[in-house]
């Protein structure tokens, strides 16, 4: 008998009938979950005039949809999306890593309170803060800057993300103290230790932060919606709605633009899949 390594033991199912059923089920779930995305890919290169022409089988390939999309300024929207995700990710990672260093490696009065305050924002869905956030962005307290109508308004708020700090803090706690002490005996200061001892050890966690941060920022909708004032600041996500509303633009152009908004996240996910799964399970299991 084969070893039972799964709950249902489907791996041990033998015989032609069992095989056919299994393959049929696999095909069904791939069709249901990946089929629509594949149809997006195929249709983007087809001659799609109306929404009924979505297809899974390529025929009559053309780049027309992309040409029209470029005429509609899609490259501008793509550039905005990339600037927001690049700037946001850079800020989010820098802020989370430095905060995690203090939270994980230093003991000072108030450390538990700070951690509690930061983690409590995980219960605070950003949608709920949307309206007051739009007021804050129009006149940032203390500095009195108006971020509405700027890409910076979409970048700066994503810097504060409790999940990233949590993942990084948990990881840094597990770095052996001996590494740090050895460096300190060599006369290294905090900055040196952080940069050349702690960060290199934390490379796997940085991968987790990278993929989760990318997905989170790429998925942002309500923040760009609050910040953008005209098409110049649209991200791809926002542009999809105005392309849809525009009668002159065919479904093909919408599909091509949606594909442009889909591809970066799929590519990043496939490239960093292992880190993604690790973050998903560690973050979720620990709550």
């Amino acid at each position: 008998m084969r070893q039972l390594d799964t709950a249902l033991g489907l791996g041990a199912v033998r015989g032609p009938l069992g095989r056919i059923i299994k393959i049929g089920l696999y095909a069904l779930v791939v069709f249901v979950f990946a089929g629509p995305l594949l149809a997006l890919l195929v249709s983007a290169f087809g001659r799609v005039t109306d929404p009924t022409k979505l297809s899974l089988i390529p025929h009559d390939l053309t780049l027309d949809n992309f040409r029209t999309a470029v005429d509609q300024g899609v490259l501008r929207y793509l550039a905005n999306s990339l600037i927001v995700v690049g700037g946001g990710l850079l800020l989010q990672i820098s802020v989370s890593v430095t905060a995690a260093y203090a939270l994980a490696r230093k003991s000072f009065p108030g450390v538990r309170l700070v951690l509690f305050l930061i983690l409590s924002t995980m219960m605070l869905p950003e949608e709920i803060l949307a309206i007051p956030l739009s007021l804050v962005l129009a006149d940032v307290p203390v500095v009195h800057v108006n971020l509405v109508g700027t890409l910076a308004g979409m970048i700066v708020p994503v810097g504060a993300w409790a999940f990233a700090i949590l993942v990084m803090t948990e990881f840094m706690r597990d770095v052996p103290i001996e590494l740090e002490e050895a460096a300190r005996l060599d006369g290294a200061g905090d900055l040196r230790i952080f940069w050349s001892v702690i960060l290199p050890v934390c490379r796997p966690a940085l991968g987790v932060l990278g993929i989760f941060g990318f997905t989170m920022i790429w998925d942002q909708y309500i923040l760009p919606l609050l910040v953008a004032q005209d098409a110049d600041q649209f991200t791809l996500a926002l542009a999809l709605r105005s392309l849809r509303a525009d009668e002159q633009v065919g479904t093909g152009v919408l599909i091509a633009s949606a594909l442009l908004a889909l591809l970066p996240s799929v590519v990043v996910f496939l490239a960093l899949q292992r880190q993604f799964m690790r973050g998903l399970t560690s973050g979720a299991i620990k709550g």
Partner: protein
Amino acid sequence: MTATLAAPPARTQAARRGRRRRHLGAWLWLAPALLLFALFKFVPMARAISMSFHEVRPYLGDRWVGLDNYRAVLGDDAFRAAAGHTIVLALGETIGSIVVGLALALLLEGTARHLWFVRTAVFLPTVTAMAVVAALWRIIYHPAPDGALNSVLGWIGLGPGQFLDSPHTSLWSVMAVGIWRGAPYDMMIFIAGLAGVDRTLYEAAAADGAGPLRRLWHVAFPAMRPVFGIVVTLAAIRGLRVFTEIYLLTNGGPNGSTEVVMTLVYKLGLERNELGIASAGSMLLLLATVVLTVVAQSLRRRA
């Protein structure tokens, strides 16, 4: 150097100064995060609480109205309907994602390479931006008889349906999209939970003559109880805060049949400028989220 020569009190003073400098260092490392959290989480939160007790009047100054905003929200039929839709949607998406996610996890659990491929394909909706998901599903749901989904339904002798365009099916159609995107996420967490079940227990159960279903019920499920707790909490919170998919799929229509709390709050606040009432609505939703989280956490701890 001075410390070695000085009397004990001076030494403790030096030590205290050193400690204080170390503490200051820690706060410096934290400063960027604290600044961003203060500006974009805590200040908006405080403003939301304050606005929910005020009539917000630009240039005239806010007027304290006590619980009037809350009374207005709770007495509003539109809000009550939206709250009902939100609960139905959150419940439906939570249960749907868990059932589908668990079925997927049981089907696709294992280390074989082809399983890894199928899992990756199934997981893609979860990493796809909501804006893309909504654009795609509006096309799939196109209500013409030769629309994408109606064509597929035609193969098995069903349809055609109106989906998002009919007040009778719109909420269910939105729910299906939520499950489509949420189930693969739950699947991955379940698979991680299943991976933690002791393999020898399966062997032992099989040796005792337990079939696959009894193995599932008596061995795998009890071991996964904490995982269920997490998945339920995450899915329920995801369901309550729903905004983007409604905003993009139906914007609350047709006929208000898919209006949820967040889309209503958005319209009240940003389109009708009723900031106080909108804030009261958000605070009620936040309260529901916090209560749900706390209850789920305490249930989990007891389990």
